[in-house]
């Protein structure tokens, strides 16, 4: 038999000292741990950081010496395209991590803490964008090391385009993360991303595709990001269609993710 625990509280927290977390629990600590987790995941590193770099060495370098119509190197065109690809895989996988955490019961555990669901999603999106930035920087670093030379403004604008455009895929990853029940969501996302990248003209220029496919490709979610990221290089300027494409898909995936997220947090 236990005795009734009427012992005086010695170390207990005073109720008046209790307070909810600032920013609903969104903090640099959470972000730092999240990023470290992602970087510790070998599969993520392989597919997001190493593979696109290897692609560049395999498919980009043989094009050395070739020039675009405006005299810039073809290798730069390939490098920027692969940077977009790297960033989209990175952000999708970071967002898609939600699926794993739901499968593990972590999101249920989080509901027993003061962390606000919105802060959780914000952390995931921020992690995705940091990983996306790292992906772009690595691809550009490999390109520069392999001899790609561009004016500073092209590096900067193309990099920003590839990075910010990958917001589409941070939203896409979250959407898939709340849609998929699977723990290993990226296993079936990999091929889907590769097909989307193909339609987005990241692996080969869209001009080589049949006309019908070219028309369809304009409405797929990678097309806009690719066009915007390469615009500083080609000097073609950003078309309204590309901009509408990026904004449209970002809004669509975000709304989808938000809807599934609400269903998820309301679920019993």
């Amino acid at each position, binding site marked *: *038999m*236990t*005795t*009734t*625990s*009427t*012992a*005086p*509280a*010695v*170390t*207990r*927290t*005073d*109720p008046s*000292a*209790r*307070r*909810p*977390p*600032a920013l609903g*629990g969104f*903090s640099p*600590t*959470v972000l730092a*741990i999240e990023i*470290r*987790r992602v970087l*510790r*995941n070998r599969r993520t590193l392989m597919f997001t950081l190493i593979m696109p770099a290897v692609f560049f060495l395999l498919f980009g370098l043989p094009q050395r010496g070739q020039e675009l119509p405006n005299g810039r190197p073809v290798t730069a065109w390939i490098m920027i395209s692969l940077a977009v690809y790297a960033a989209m895989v990175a952000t999708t996988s970071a967002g898609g991590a939600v699926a794993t*955490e739901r499968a*593990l*019961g*972590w999101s*249920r*555990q*989080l*509901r*027993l*803490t*003061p*962390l606000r669901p919105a802060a959780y999603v914000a952390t995931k999106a921020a992690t995705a964008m940091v990983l996306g930035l790292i992906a772009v920087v690595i691809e550009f670093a490999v390109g520069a090391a392999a001899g790609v030379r561009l004016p500073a403004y092209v590096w900067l604008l193309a990099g920003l385009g590839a990075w910010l455009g990958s917001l589409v895929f941070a939203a896409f990853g979250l959407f898939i993360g709340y849609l998929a029940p699977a723990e290993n969501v990226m296993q079936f996302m990999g091929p889907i991303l590769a097909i989307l990248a193909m339609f987005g003209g990241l692996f080969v220029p869209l001009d080589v595709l049949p006309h019908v496919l070219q028309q369809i490709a304009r409405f797929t979610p990678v097309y806009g990001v690719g066009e915007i990221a390469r615009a500083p290089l080609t000097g073609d300027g950003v078309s309204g269609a590309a901009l509408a494409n990026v904004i449209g898909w970002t809004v669509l995936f975000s709304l989808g993710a938000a809807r599934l997220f609400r269903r998820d947090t309301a679920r*019993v």
Partner: protein
Amino acid sequence: MTSAHPAVELAGLTKTFGPVTAVDGLSLRIQPGEVVAFLGPNGAGKTTTIDLLLGLARPDAGTVRILGGTPTEAIRYGRVAAVMQTGGLLKDLTVAETVRLTASFYGRTRPPGEVLERAGIADLADRQVGKCSGGQQQRLRFALALLPDPDLMVLDEPTTGMDVEGRREFWQAIRADARDGRTVLFATHYLDEADAYADRIVLVRQGRIVADGTTAEIKNLAAGRLVRATLPGADQAGLAALPGVEAVEVRGDSVLVHTADSDAVARHLLTRTDARDVEITSRNLEDAFLALTTGQPAVERLTTQPIGA
């Protein structure tokens, strides 16, 4: 520290899943500082009740108050914490990272080192969660629950799947902690756990409370003996009128008499009736538990404790 509000106040709580009523008008009040076992067989509605208590599920009817507020408020201010049965851990993090990550979700916590120490896993700080045993993971969940220094700690079958040694160590940690005056509510289907670690036992069956009292009181429900005999056409009222008799049940040709004075019943049966095959057995807590939770009608009448609170 003293609060005018009960630590837990459930009123008329009901939750159905399709045709199944998991929780059926359950009411319960727990005062600050109580250590309460929520005891019942699997499927009695314990986990659903805890989900409702913590705001993880919404009741179809009834209300939940934790320390005078809603579950959401209690969680936001770290006044309640819970150790759930399974899941809820990220395998790729280390033990220390899990604690630091969880700590960052709160406005104010105890130091991570302290909760690891209290949960008895300070030496595992750098181990990956996926490489920890079930018992170690459970103590990690307990460490996480200690972070906000909650006024109310809820544990849902915390030792399921642990070996004997693991269970003992886990409860030692909980007991050491409960001495500080924390309110503890734990669900279990292990009788010995309820007996050893709770001040009060709430027995549930089919979503209802069938008995509620101190462990001693619950044990008293099982006091006395059971006299069984073969007696066609037994005079139920006559037997019930004998001194010490608490309940009489007739099952076909058998009669079962629950009594504090088995000698008197046996003497009566053998001298005044045609009873044969007289059998006298004593009952233990296990019997009371089984009887109360499997719902044999005669035994239910033995429940002298107020239902609910």
